[in-house]
């Protein structure tokens, strides 16, 4: 190699090394905690007092890191305590939930009536919202509690007249119906105070527990342990109600 080429080659190598060095340095600088340009209030390190992010901004990991587990202004759980009895607030919630459920079910286990209009003739688009649970603006479309059937409107009917036009006045003789349906149970039986409760209702058409007991369910019914997926491992169904051998005739 000539001296010129050699010195040119060395300069190139140093240049590459510099660029590489800057790149590596830049990489580590970039992944470090830089200043949060969006939120000038955030400081590094542990925050002793609560620091509220600006509206619309997310709390940083730094903010969350040092805190103990539990509720604060960053996240609030609305779960009520689940126990036999429980506080007054929990009871009101339970009664409200049971009454609410009973409003569109003739009895515990009846197919709920549909609280919104549906297309009357064509095959239903129910699964668009009810295949998985779906919440929007405080209203929940619960996931189907049972396996998929092709003819939803065979069992689920609307709760208001589907046809247009003036209704005839109801017959005087078509008086009320005095049927009083069995109501959903408020809790299952526990062998002792904090034992897993047995399933106090039959599971026919209710194989998907999360439909009612999942995060989008009514408050008192929401499971405190949604991460556990094998419900019947601890919450056994009733042989009598589920027509298991030895149960109902």
């Amino acid at each position, binding site marked *: 190699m000539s001296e010129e080429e050699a010195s040119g080659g060395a300069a190139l190598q140093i240049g590459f090394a510099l660029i590489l060095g800057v790149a590596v340095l830049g990489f580590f600088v970039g992944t470090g905690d830089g200043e949060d340009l969006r939120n000038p209030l955030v400081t590094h390190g542990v925050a002793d007092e609560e620091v509220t992010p600006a509206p619309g901004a997310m709390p940083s990991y730094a903010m969350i890191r040092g805190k103990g587990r539990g509720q604060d202004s960053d996240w609030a759980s609305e779960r009520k305590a689940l126990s036999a*009895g429980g506080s007054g607030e929990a009871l009101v919630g339970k009664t409200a939930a049971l009454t609410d459920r009973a409003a569109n079910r003739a009895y515990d286990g009846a197919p709920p009536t549909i609280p919104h209009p549906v297309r009357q003739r064509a095959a239903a688009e129910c699964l668009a919202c009810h295949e998985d649970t779906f919440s929007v603006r405080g209203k929940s479309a619960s996931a189907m509690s049972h396996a998929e059937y092709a003819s939803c409107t*065979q*069992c689920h009917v609307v709760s208001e007249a589907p046809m247009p036009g003036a209704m*005839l006045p109801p017959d005087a003789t078509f008086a009320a*119906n005095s049927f009083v349906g*069995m109501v959903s149970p408020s809790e299952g039986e526990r062998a002792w105070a904090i034992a897993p409760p047995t399933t106090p*209702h039959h599971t*026919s058409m209710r194989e998907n527990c999360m439909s009612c007991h999942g995060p989008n369910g009514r408050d008192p019914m929401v499971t405190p342990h949604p991460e556990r997926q094998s419900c019947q491992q601890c919450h056994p169904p009733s042989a009598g109600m589920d027509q298991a051998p030895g149960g109902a005739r």
Partner: protein
Amino acid sequence: MTIDTDRRTFLKIGAMAAATAAAAGTPSDADATGLDPELRKRMGAGVTWDKAPCRFCGTGCHVQVGVKNDKVVAIAGDKLADVNKGLLCVKGYHVGLALYGEDRLRQPMLRVNGELQPISWDKALDIIAERVELDPKGFAYYGSGQWTIPEGYAAQKFMKGGLTSNHIDPNARLCMASAVTGFLAAYGVDEPAGCYEDLDKADVVIMWGNNPAEMHPVLFSRIIDRRSRGQEVTLIDIGTRRTRTTAHCQHYLEFKPQSDLAIANGIAHLLLANGTWDKEFVDANCSFRTDSEPRGLFGDAMSFEDYKAAMAEYTPERVEQISGVPAKDIRMLGDLFGRKDIRITSLWCMGMNQHTEGTAINTLVHGIHLLSGHFGKPGDAPTSLTGQPSACGTAREVGTLAHLLPGGRLVAKEPHRKDAEEYWNLPAGRIDGKPGFHTLKMFEDWCTPKSKGGSIHTIWVQVTNPGQTMPNRNKLLEPGVKDPNKFMIVSEVYPTATTEIADLVLPSAMWVEKNGMFGNSERRTQQWFRMVKPPGDARDDCWQTIAVAKRLFDRGFAGMKDKDGKFLFHIEDDSGKAVPIWNWSNYYDVNVDKHLFEEYRLFSRLKHKDLAPYDEYVKARGMRWPVVETEPGVWRETKFRFSGFDDPYVAEGRAIDFYHSTTGDSRAQIWFRKYTDPPEMPDAEYPMWLCTGRVLEHWHSGTMTRRVPQLARAMPQGYVELNRDDAAELSVDNGEVVRLTTRRGTLDLPVWIDGRGAPPRGSVFVPFFDERLLINFLTLDAHDPFSKQPDYKKCAVKVSKLSKTTAGR
């Protein structure tokens, strides 16, 4: 309350909670939980469950009924039932509520000066006995496909064995009669050969003018849910309007009313023209038949050549001309039937039965299945679906028709009368050999004054609502209602259009308020026990018949004695002591159902519709006849009748055996019958077709379902389905009230465009469940010549715009 995960605290809480619970008592103590005690009372503790078939349609689903404190409080699908496997439909899920409308009839009532006044049962029985004694030959019984088997059997024995009268006919005359005559003309014996398992195996299912998505929902979902499991099943809807069923079908063949006859012939034509008919099957098992002159149910023999020649006219183009169905679709059907590698099930109900050529179309559809060999293998079946829960079990099998005796026997045949007289221990000649009046004739005669030859003076109606369901009501009901010499007795559970015109109203027990048995659409006899008491002084329909019989017996009516002088309904308990079941308080001292059924069973052997002992049905979720005892105490049902692999009565070595063949040679009949126009078609004055029918939410005339809030809210009112373009032409808006007029009557109805169903141009549809909008003032009473079944599906109507906004007459 935050959840402190500290272990010590956790255990502390646990201990405190346990102590509190122990101090407060059991969890079911309302005070401890603080939960609303009224709510607490309604929870599942203390509910007992028992099985019953559903009260509603001919599918015959089994339900589990939850009872607490003598009230039905819940329903669940019965998972152990073969028919529905735990699934129900909306009516089935709400069947328990049907018992609790607050206007349940509780007391017998007699119409005095136009008003119904309460009277005692004792007085009511005397009144009925007097009406019988007036002239036993003029006393008629109008029964029902919703009668339990023992109820129908008691009425049958009372009339034919007691009164020597054959004027007993069921509402099934308006519903399944053409299916019956179709079976008889084709196979020589009634009821489908296949069963619901055909639905699980068919590759192609064809609907012939029926809407099972709404009318047999559990059977329909049994088919379409196969798709969710990855199975392919092709559904074809041959219909006169688009329905919920159409939405699930791959093909919709819209045909002009009545032209189903041409479509069936078109398929037969193609099988012959293409050479794809099943020569082997036909040579072994079939003969050909055509109408005799004059026409008779069993017709004349026809040669194959003549059959082929007769079918030559029904080319796809000719069929398109008659029916409006494109020729290519007829070819598609012909190709499907011509294939040997697929299984085809045809389903039909009222579209083919409520038809002035109902017998003909039934025989033609049987014919194409026989001609193509799509018969006798699981999935290959011409399957008539029965509408009512026990039209098969009671009306057809017990033979509560004007010309029948139990077990498929005929009053006109002496050996059959002798059988009945022997089983009923009657003196020879007690049973009349002359058939009585079929339903339309019965009511027509009741509407005819005595001076003009009307011999029927009294009709006793049980478990049905002719006031709402008789066609052409102006002709078949009003004149009798107005005639003071005519009398109507109605056993009912609620005020209906029939109690409205009745002279004597008897409050009846309903469904699980009594023991019962039904026979569903797949030959399955099912049983249930009483679970709750009926309201007020309502009593079992079966008791009512027996009590009237005893009243007549006590008054010296000879017919109520058997040949040894014993009461016709003499029943003994296990110790041999007579039980006075005619006293209501003793009625449940024994199981009257069981006694009557064990007597009735004897009749079932003749036509090989063998029934098992009552106790077998107690154990099972129904069993399909013929049920045979394979070893002592072991009873085996038959799924596929006439098929050698399953039917024990098929002759040895045969694959197929039509052992009740009308020609006595183990052959079924493939019929040729031509297309003819219906008696009333649209014309210049009445330019549209009027079709009537049902909807999912309401059972028949709605007397039960309109009192169930969930069902009534979902379908509160009658309406007329009008095509969108027809509405535009009439300048009628959705919801506007229009006037329907036929030659027989007028009715104003609100319009529903693109609602539950969508009729084509020139056609309207009206459901008949709403008694305030009684469409049967407009319908036609023309009927099939053999079955005497009227045609509710087609007559001519004009639709006119109105200025007023209230519906009604």
